[in-house]
């Protein structure tokens, strides 16, 4: 039976053994990348910030001490700070809109109308999510995207488990209000943005030319 080393053991080894850092990297890459991607909505930025997160972790691994805070929480804090700086420095929230539609082109072939509706729904939700405070966005992404335990989410957020649960409740309530306001303010007949209509036309032209979308475009 293979017993996986804990993060704390690997961190101690990683201070002298590059290979141990490689194991930590493989273990935490999916969650960190997913978190950053969901916060930025952009593959290039997600890759850049993920790389910065792990290089920063490598540079400062000697200063990491567990003290009850999991290594994952430490990594997420680095990632969160980088994302916060990215938002502050660039004010590029709008770029999130474009790549939020990527699954439209990646999913298995289904009815184009249904795909477009799914993409529209996703876009509407993500627009609403981005109107939440950074702290609330962070909680939603951590809760929905990662496999972190309640204690780990609490450690990353710097709150007790009870406080984090209460924050999720308030966040869902706030999101519901935002969505209601968006639906009220949206003029009828303009629910689908131009990029989505263009993607839909592109999809339809592919169908007409006999192209298969099985492998993605």
């Amino acid at each position: 039976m293979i017993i996986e080393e804990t993060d704390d053991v690997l961190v101690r080894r990683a201070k002298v053994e590059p290979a141990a850092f490689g194991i930590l990297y493989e273990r935490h890459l999916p969650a960190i990348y997913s978190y950053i991607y969901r916060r930025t909505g952009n593959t290039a930025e997600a890759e850049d910030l993920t790389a910065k997160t792990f290089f920063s972790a490598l540079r400062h691994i000697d200063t990491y001490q567990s003290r009850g805070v999991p290594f994952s929480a430490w990594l997420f804090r680095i990632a969160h700070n980088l994302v916060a700086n990215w938002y502050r420095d660039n004010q590029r929230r709008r770029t999130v809109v474009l790549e939020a539609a990527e699954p439209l082109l990646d999913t298995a072939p289904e009815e184009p109308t249904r795909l477009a509706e799914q993409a529209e729904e996703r876009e509407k939700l993500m627009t609403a999510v981005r109107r939440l405070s950074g702290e609330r966005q962070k909680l939603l992404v951590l809760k929905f995207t990662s496999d972190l335990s309640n204690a780990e989410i609490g450690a990353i957020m710097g709150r007790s488990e009870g406080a984090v649960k209460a924050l999720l409740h308030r966040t869902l309530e706030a999101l519901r209000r935002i969505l209601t306001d968006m639906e009220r303010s949206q003029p009828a007949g303009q629910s689908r943005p131009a990029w989505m209509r263009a993607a839909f036309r592109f999809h339809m032209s592919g169908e007409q030319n006999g192209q298969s979308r099985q492998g993605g475009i």
Partner: protein
Amino acid sequence: MNRRVADEILWRYVDILHYGSDNAERCLSLFPKHRDQLEPLLHLAKRLGPSLAPVRPSPAFARRLKEELLVAAASRSRAAPPPASHQELWWRAAAVGSAVSVMAAFAVMWHNHNHTQEAGVGARSAGPRSGGQQHAA
């Protein structure tokens, strides 16, 4: 409804969604009086799931970044010995402290031993003289 109960229901419902199942109706049937309050939030959580689903990095990116990190980690470990952690520093300090204590104890014992020997020699050399004086007296 107790707000904490609602917090807990929503939290657990999202956990269940994460594992691919949906028990919104069961949750609501357990709290029928609060259906109006909970139902829209459970529904919203369910809608959010696909939009916030985990995204995996491309294998090429993951591989390239790992290679770069391993190169950086190797050059870092060659460049400088790793600094000791706090725990290691404590152990080292404790070891030095113990060694100093043992050496001090030996030094005291050695000093006492020498002092006793000197006192013994002094007593032996002084003994007959005083005895002689007494005899003389």
